């Protein structure tokens, strides 16, 4: 045999070996799922990899949208109505069927739903609730978890005692009246109060995030980091079993790739499509669903230094920004112009038809001149490049820069990655930085307090612009201490009015939080909230 033939054979053998190795490598990635369930699996393309699936410790809307499907809290919201029917979500019974509030507003007695079982079979009862609340609040409890506590600080800040009255009743005692409590208990933006199976908590401890066990409509199936989080139907769900067999949340961080994935049929629903893709998708037969969640995209002004210290300057900026064009041209109507600090999906929202700061560059120039800056000034705007709820911050900032430069304000843009931006933002605005962009919101107006309270001035809290307004704090304190909802709301509206007039934060737009749905998806409702319910959703063929 010639050596050339031998060489050929040998190299063939090598390549065969390589192939086998490659297959062996890939074989470990084999999957699960049968054809039938695959057909009834809803795939949702989401904008980033979720945080840990511990509902109390995991932060961010993206994560809560997932853990919300597996966990319930005592208090829920009615997520069955679109924004057009309910501008603000109504509170609804969750794992508590009802609750009594003492007239002094200091004790809350929750009557728990009976016959509910966690996904692992553990019975849901008052002990379970007690166990969970102490995990978030009671430093002396063995299950106390610093991260869960940190994320739920605002909810439990006035809690002084938890008492199990009986198997179906639990009493929370506060040290002062705290009207936002119920709404905060129904929130999930930065950690929620979803109830976890105590058995599972005891078993897994901190690793609960990889074995989430709740009472929700879907049961955890598996999580492949970077690839998917999947869950299957909970046939025993107390609210009625969902229609879908499985739900898969698939993180696709790049917006273009997300859009591509629904076009190619790999996903059924995607979050946050690029604004420029929406009309094309719609004309290709995809449906866009949007809402008015409690979301505002705003600038925190640096109240420590000139010229932002000057109210006239802040007003001038607010007049100078063409919110309408921003929403229509840049964001392609995926957002609404925002003229007040609180979002429409908030009980403190003012139903005034007249916006306070219409686009008026001339007035802006005039105000600047009055403030002593007839020739404008130079300032820096900081923003993240992406992030949950941030929409498309850089193009938006670029647009606003152009607006401001028209009235003589020269703007430098500084950008950061989302998470480094959060810590940078929370450290407080640096000298020389005029405004820093942020987006947030809650259906409870208490959010305004979190943003403006002087005790939460950075770095102790999210009041990054160092805002102090004793009058506003006084009104908010009255709202918090109110024991009936109407009184509270009246104070909240007043607070909103004051903040909008004083502009510690310059609101820009309210996100409409659009989702793109393929034709197969039926009964998907987007309420006035940052998350949604999937129990009613069905898939066609």
């Amino acid at each position: 045999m010639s050596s050339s033939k031998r060489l050929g054979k040998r190299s063939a053998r090598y390549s065969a070996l390589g192939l086998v190795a490659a297959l062996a490598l890939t074989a470990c990635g084999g999957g699960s799922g049968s054809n039938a369930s695959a057909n009834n699996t809803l795939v949702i393309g989401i904008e980033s990899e979720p945080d840990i699936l511990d509902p109390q410790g995991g932060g961010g809307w993206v994560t809560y949208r997932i853990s919300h499907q597996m966990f319930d809290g005592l208090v829920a919201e009615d997520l069955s109505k679109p924004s057009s029917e309910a501008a603000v979500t109504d509170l609804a019974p969750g794992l508590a069927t009802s609750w009594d509030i003492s007239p002094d507003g200091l004790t809350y007695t929750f009557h728990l739903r009976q016959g509910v079982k966690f996904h692992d079979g553990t019975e849901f009862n008052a002990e379970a609730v007690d166990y969970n609340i102490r995990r978030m609040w009671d430093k002396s409890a063995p299950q106390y978890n610093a991260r869960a506590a940190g994320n739920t600080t605002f909810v439990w800040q006035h809690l002084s005692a938890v008492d199990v009255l009986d198997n179906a009743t639990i009493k929370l005692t506060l040290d002062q009246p705290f009207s936002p409590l119920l709404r905060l208990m129904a929130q999930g933006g930065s950690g929620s109060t979803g109830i976890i199976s105590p058995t599972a908590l005891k078993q897994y401890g901190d690793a609960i995030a990889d074995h989430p066990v709740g009472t929700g409509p879907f049961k955890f199936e598996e999580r492949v980091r970077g690839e998917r989080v999947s869950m299957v139907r909970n046939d025993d769900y107390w609210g009625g079993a969902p229609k879908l067999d499985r739900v898969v949340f698939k993180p696709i961080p790049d917006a273009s790739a997300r859009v591509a994935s629904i076009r190619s049929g790999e996903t059924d629903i995607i979050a946050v499509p690029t604004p420029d893709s929406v009309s094309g998708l719609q004309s290709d037969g995809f449906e866009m669903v949007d809402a008015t969640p409690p979301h505002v995209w705003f600038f925190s002004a640096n109240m420590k230094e000139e010229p932002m210290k000057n109210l006239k300057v802040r007003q001038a900026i607010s007049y100078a920004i063409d919110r309408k064009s921003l929403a229509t041209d840049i964001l392609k109507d995926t957002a609404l112009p925002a003229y007040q600090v609180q979002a429409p999906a908030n009980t403190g929202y003012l139903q005034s038809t007249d916006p306070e700061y219409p686009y008026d560059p001339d007035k802006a120039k005039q105000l600047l001149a009055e403030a002593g800056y007839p020739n404008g000034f130079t300032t820096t705007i900081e923003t993240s490049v992406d992030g949950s709820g941030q929409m498309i911050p850089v193009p938006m900032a670029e647009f606003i820069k152009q607006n401001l430069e028209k009235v003589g304000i020269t703007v430098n843009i500084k950008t950061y990655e989302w998470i480094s931006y959060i810590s940078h933002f929370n450290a407080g605005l640096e000298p020389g930085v005029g405004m820093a962009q942020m987006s947030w919101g809650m259906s409870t107006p208490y959010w305004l307090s979190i943003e403006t309270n002087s005790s939460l001035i950075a770095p102790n809290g999210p009041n990054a612009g160092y805002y102090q307004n004793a009058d506003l704090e006084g009104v908010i304190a009255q709202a918090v201490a109110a024991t009936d909802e109407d009184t509270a709301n009246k104070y909240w509206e007043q607070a909103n009015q004051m903040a909008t007039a004083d502009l510690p934060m310059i609101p820009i737009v309210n996100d409409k939080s659009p989702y793109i749905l393929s034709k197969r998806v039926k009964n998907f409702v987007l309420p006035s909230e940052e998350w949604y319910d999937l129990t009613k959703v069905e898939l066609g063929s």
Partner: protein
Amino acid sequence: MTDMLLEIKNLKTHFHTDGGIVKAVDGVDLEIPRGGILGVVGESGSGKSVTGLSVMGLLGSRRARNAGGQILFKGRDLLTFNDRQLQKLRGSEIGMVFQGALSGLDPSFSVGSQLMEVIRRHQKVNATQARKIAMESLELVAMPDPERKIRSLPHELSGGQRQRVLIAMALSCNPELLIADEPTTALDATVQKQIVDLLVDINRARGTAILMVTHDFGVVARMCRTVAVMRYGKVVEKGTVQEVLENPQHPYTQALMNAVPRLHLTAAERAVPRPERRLFELTKNLPATPVQREEAYAPL
């Protein structure tokens, strides 16, 4: 002249370079009878190597062009051969050995496998037979311990042994003509002599005709029957070795002969004290060449 194995008639090989046409071989006539040994002597750039490569069709450069003449091998004009015919011819009917024995063997394959590849390329034999022929070829070139050497990789052999392998390779298919292009340059003197003697032995034993390209009159004297002296692409003088060496006619030949340092000078020569002994002085004995001969500036 019909019994000539190789007849080169008015061969012209030109190179088209950026600086114009270089006539490396410019009308050369040479002939070798069957079993003969022709020495082609010249200095760098004389066109002697290009002549050998032209015969093999191995100029391999885009710039090389044949500009006329004939190369008749056993009556067939090799210049009319296509690539396939030439490939068949090379190694089987005409073998070639180059200078630079150190790098002449593929370092990655054993001596045996390289020999066998050439053998099986030209002869319809199986591996065992090829191996046998390879062994014979190695024995022919007096390779010590051929059983072991056939399995060796080239770098395991000395320079002289490698040159032997190359000769064995060139001879493995029993060609009628061997073109040896300075096969001993860069070898130690002792090895050089062995190789030269080996070639003479092979010529006698097998009747293989040899075209010996060299710059060394010593080699010519040792092994050749006829010799041609080349300069600037032309043959300036040719004849039997006896005639040319003992009575060179062309001044260039004379000059070259004079320039070779010799041992065992005659008593008369030795009587000259060393400092006064002189080698040949080019400018005096040669007609002035046009330009560019570097040595035109020689002050001698």
